[in-house]
Every structure is written in C-alpha cells, then in structure tokens.
C-alpha cells in the first residue's frame, strides 16, 4: 500500500503547494541566484555599473587574512556555543526528568528563552553585561574581573557566546528531555539492579541511547551558531572590538552593506550556502545509518 494521497485533479496539488513554492522562490531562490550572479561580478559602490570578473572575488577571499580570521572566529564561537548549549541542556534535562512536583513550572521557564527574538536577547544581555549598570558585570567585577567588553576582545567573545548559548539551551533542552523520556524505565531499573548508580546509569545507558538526538542537535547547534546569531552579535558588539566577534555571517553583512563591497559579500554568502548544503547532506547521511539502534 502506498501512503501517498492520490489527486484526481492534476492542478489541485500544484495549487496546494504553490504558496510555499512562491515563498521559497521569492525569499530564497531569487536572492540565492542573485548572490551567485553577483559573486562573479565587480560592482562600483553606487551600483551603477558592474563587470564580470570570474572567480576573482573568491580568489581574493582565499588570500584575505581578514576572511581567514573571521573563519577562525566563527569556529571558536560555534564550537563554544554548541558545546555549552548542549552540555547545559543535557544536564538540565537530566534533572528535569527526575522532577515530579512543579515540573511544568520548571519546564515552562526553561523553554521561554527560545521565544525571545535574537535582537531582544542581545539587548537584554548587553544590559546585564554593561560595565557600569549591568548586574552580571557587577558580579564579575566583584570577583576581580576587570570587565570591559567594549575594549577587551576576549570579554566581547564570551559575552556573545553566553548570550547565544542562553538562547539555544531551551531548544536543546526540549529535544534532550524527550529523548531521555523515551529511554525505557526498565533499562534504568535493570542497570540499578546491576549495581550502577544514577550518574553511571546516565553515562552508560541514557547517553548512548540518546546519541541520535545528540548528533542531530550537534548539527542544528552548529547551523544556529553559524547563521542565526547575527541578531545577537549585531545588537551586542557589531562584530567588535576590532573584528574579534565578526563571524562569517556578520562579515557578509558588514562587507556588503557597510563596506559596500557587494561582489565579495556575495562570494562569501555563496561559500556559506555551500557549507549549509554540506552540513545538511552530512546530517542526512549519518543520522539514519550510524547512530540508530
């Protein structure tokens, strides 16, 4: 038996999916096409004339130390965010699983940050981290840290990492919690009888069994840190101080809209598109094969 629906009218399915196709075309395919087209062009800052330059924009990037630095910054940033957001969410969900009373309350509050827009999250934490009025900044100063994210690039980096992590924990938490809850209770009981304590059970039973979810989240978190943190960085550091928090995505914006080097900016977005495509392929290839039981 096929689970596919069968339409008598040929045009009905087309009509049904056309809104989605239209949106994809207008907001993704067309700009993506533009970006690819522009990445082979050199345009003057006023957009008056442009010429075909072949791969020059890409070659230029390859030799640009700023671009490589930004790649390095992005990796540092993304690995930290993915790692912190996943570890924190995993610990929180491990505890959440054992909470009986007030669990709704706990879960609801943990999920809220996800509903906060990146720009708002950025402004919120910028306020908390403000060296003169911020609560967190004050706490850090109390611990003897000379907190100044506007001048100290390490501080700025930590600030965007923590904010981006905070926003992503909720998402990871939901997935981890669902995965942990799907581990049969009798496995834990069998392991307990086999002489394994709660922590050891978590490490030897739960963790291996939720590895498909962990792997899925790893990819999702990388994509998030790479692409969805633009709003946070824009609100908090604008890529500064220096270029210390300028990730690849932020650099696309900065070079294109501030520096008005549209050709280079387009070339950078084409590279990013290829990265996403690779990540997606990687995920689809592995998630079903490697880590399923």
């Amino acid at each position, binding site marked *: 038996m096929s689970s596919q629906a069968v339409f008598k009218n040929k045009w009905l399915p087309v009509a049904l999916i056309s809104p989605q196709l239209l949106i994809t075309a207008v907001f993704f395919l067309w700009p993506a096409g533009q970006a690819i087209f522009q990445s082979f062009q050199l345009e003057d800052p006023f957009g008056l004339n442009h010429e075909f330059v072949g791969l020059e924009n890409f070659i230029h990037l390859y030799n640009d130390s700023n671009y490589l630095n930004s790649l390095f910054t992005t990796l540092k940033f993304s690995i930290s965010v993915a790692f912190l957001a996943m570890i924190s969410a995993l610990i929180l969900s491990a505890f959440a699983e054992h909470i009986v009373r007030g669990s709704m309350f706990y879960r609801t509050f943990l999920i809220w940050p996800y509903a906060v827009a990146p720009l708002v999250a950025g402004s919120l934490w910028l306020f908390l981290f403000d060296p003169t009025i911020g609560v967190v900044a004050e706490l850090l100063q109390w611990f003897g840290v000379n907190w100044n994210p506007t001048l100290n690039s390490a501080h700025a980096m930590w600030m965007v990492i923590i904010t981006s992590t905070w926003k992503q924990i909720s998402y990871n938490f939901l997935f981890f919690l669902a995965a942990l809850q799907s581990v*049969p209770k009798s496995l834990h009981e069998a392991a*307990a009888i086999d002489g394994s304590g709660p922590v050891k059970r978590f490490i030897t039973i739960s963790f291996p069994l939720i590895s498909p979810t962990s792997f899925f989240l790893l990819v999702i978190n990388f994509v998030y840190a790479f692409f969805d943190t633009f709003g946070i960085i824009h609100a908090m550091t604008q890529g500064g101080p220096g270029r210390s928090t300028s990730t690849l995505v932020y650099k696309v914006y900065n070079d294109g809209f501030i520096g008005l080097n549209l050709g280079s900016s387009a070339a950078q977005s084409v590279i990013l598109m290829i990265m996403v495509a690779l990540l997606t392929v990687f995920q689809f290839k592995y998630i079903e094969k490697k880590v399923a039981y």
Partner: protein
Amino acid sequence: MSTLTLSNITKSYPNGYQAVHKLSLNIEEGEMVVLVGPSGCGKSTLLRMIAGLEEITSGNLKIDDCLVNNLEPSERDIAMVFQNYALYPHMSVYNNMAYGLRNRKTPKADIQRIVNDTAEMLEIEHLLERKPKQLSGGQRQRVAMGRAIVRKPKIFLFDEPLSNLDAKLRVQMRLQIKKLQRRLATTSVYVTHDQVEAMTLADKLVVLNQGTVEQVGTPLEIYDNPASVFVATFIGSPAMNILDAKVTKEGLQLGYSLSPIDTQSLKPGDIKLGLRPEHINIVEKMPWFEVEVELVESLGADLLLYCKTLYHKTMDETAQSLVVRAEGHSKIEIGDILGLDIDQKHLHLFDADTSKHINIDLKMNSKRELLYA
C-alpha cells in the same frame, strides 16, 4: 543460598491506592516460590519491592535476617528478569552479561570466564557478539537469564519472563528455568498469572488476591485443598465448577436433585459446591443430577463438555453452568442429556457468605440406595 522474609509488607502508591496489604511470607533457602494471581493483584508491586525498585510503605523485608528495606537495589544482591527483558540495546550480548560484573569490579579474566561459561550453559555462546535486536524472543529471554545468573545473586526475581513467548517456546523455557533453578539452587521468586506455569514451576505456590495472600502451599496442596472459592477457581484448568446448593436434613440439594450425603455436621441453608471438571463422573444409573450438553470442545485426549443443569421439577430455579471433562473419544453431542455424579472425596464445600472452604469429612448417607429406589 538465602532466605527471604516478608512481614506485614504494605504498599500504598502516591495516589493513595493500596496495592499490597499487610503481606507476610517466608521463603526458604533455595526454594522456588511462585506468586500467582489475577492481573492487578499486586504481584509486580511485591516483586519490585523485594528488588528495591519500589519503596516499602510499611513492614519489614529481610534477606538472611538482615533488614533491607532501605538498601538500594544494587546493595541487595538480587537479580531480576524483566517481562520485556530490558536488555541494553546498545550493548552486545557479551556486554549485557558483563555489565553487572564490571560494576562490581570483577577482574577482566574472571568476567570473561564467567560470561563464557554461562553462555555455554544457556546455549547462547554463538550469539555473544550480537546486539539484542538481532536476537529472537527466546534468545533474548536466555540472555536476560544469563545476565541474572552471572552475578551469582542471593535471590532471583522473575516478573512474567515467559509471557512474550509463543506457547511452544514457553513450555521449553519453563523446563529450562526449572532445571537451571534446580542446578543453581538459588532462592527464587517467580511472578506469573499463568496457573499452568505456576503449578509446574513452584516448590511453594502463593496465591494472591487484591494485595493479600489468599493461600500458601505446594501446588498439589492447593489443588487438593483450595482455601476459598477464589483459589479453587484460579488454580486448575479448566476452572473448578462452583454451584449454588442447599443443605437440608436429607442431603445436599441441587435444585430438586438430592445428593445422598450425610449433612448432620453442616449448617442448614445455602452453600457453594466445588466440583473439578476432571472429577465429575458421567453415570448411566442413579445420577445425582442431570445436565444438558450445550457445547463440546475436543482437546484430543479429552473432551470438554459445557453443560447446563436440568432441575426437572423446578421452575423457580435458574439453570447453572458447569464444565465436565470426559474421555477424548466419548460419543457425546450437543443436546445430550447426561447424568452426573461425583465421588464425595472430591467434593468441595464453601461457605455461601464468606466463600471459605468448609473442612469436614463428607460421609455417604446410609439411605443412598433407598433414595433411588
């Protein structure tokens, strides 16, 4: 080898439901005790309390005279075989069996030897590298047994370990469990709601009903002398027939059919009769009462006759149903009228109000011949 003592064990779940009520039980060294009872009577709850997976609300649980109420499952030195086997899906069969030993810091060489020996005993040595999902139901069951055996625990606990297997495999595994238990002589508690399993496996049978012990004894004791209607209908297959009757001066009266039994020591009035299908005789002459056959089931060796009592002279009594076991090749058909009788030594009497067994020796009334004259 260990003893297990339960005294006044009670379990109330957080929602207030009392699943086990003041239950006391002694389990001797090396004994195989089977807990049997209908679904929801608290068998699993009791077993899980022994394992330490469920908190004991009140009462004392002792293993070898040592109070274990507050010990963690791992500290009680017990092993449990779960109904769904609960094998670790991400570990090979070898690692499943070695897991508990590793947690107890057994030297590696010993682990290897013990696991291999056990696997050989259970005939799963060729499966050691496989993952649980690559095994059949019976093989999984044996791995689960192996995981319990390797640790040489003080007590084995089994929670309906065979209920996921097909009928034939169940019989095989039942025998294997029995053999293993004999060989290892480990004190065992086995939970089942299958009374055939219960009868065949038990050294001591415990019949549970709504969280209390209904009767304890060897399977034969319980079969021969059920303490109540509940036990009588639960143990034995097909179940014992329970018929409503009256005690009169002349004998036991089923409708207007009078059994020539001496009733002097019985209180006149209502009473319940227990007749096992295999003890009822089909007689040509001088029956106690007559029945009409409504349905015939052939089991090959036996025929099961589903009958309805015929009380000729009464209009006011409703007919009662009963099952009779007859020889497999008897020529009996639907609609036949049969005369039935039972040897008085096989007739059970139960109090009509309390449903408890009435223990008296039944004597045949000397006037038997006269009655049918």
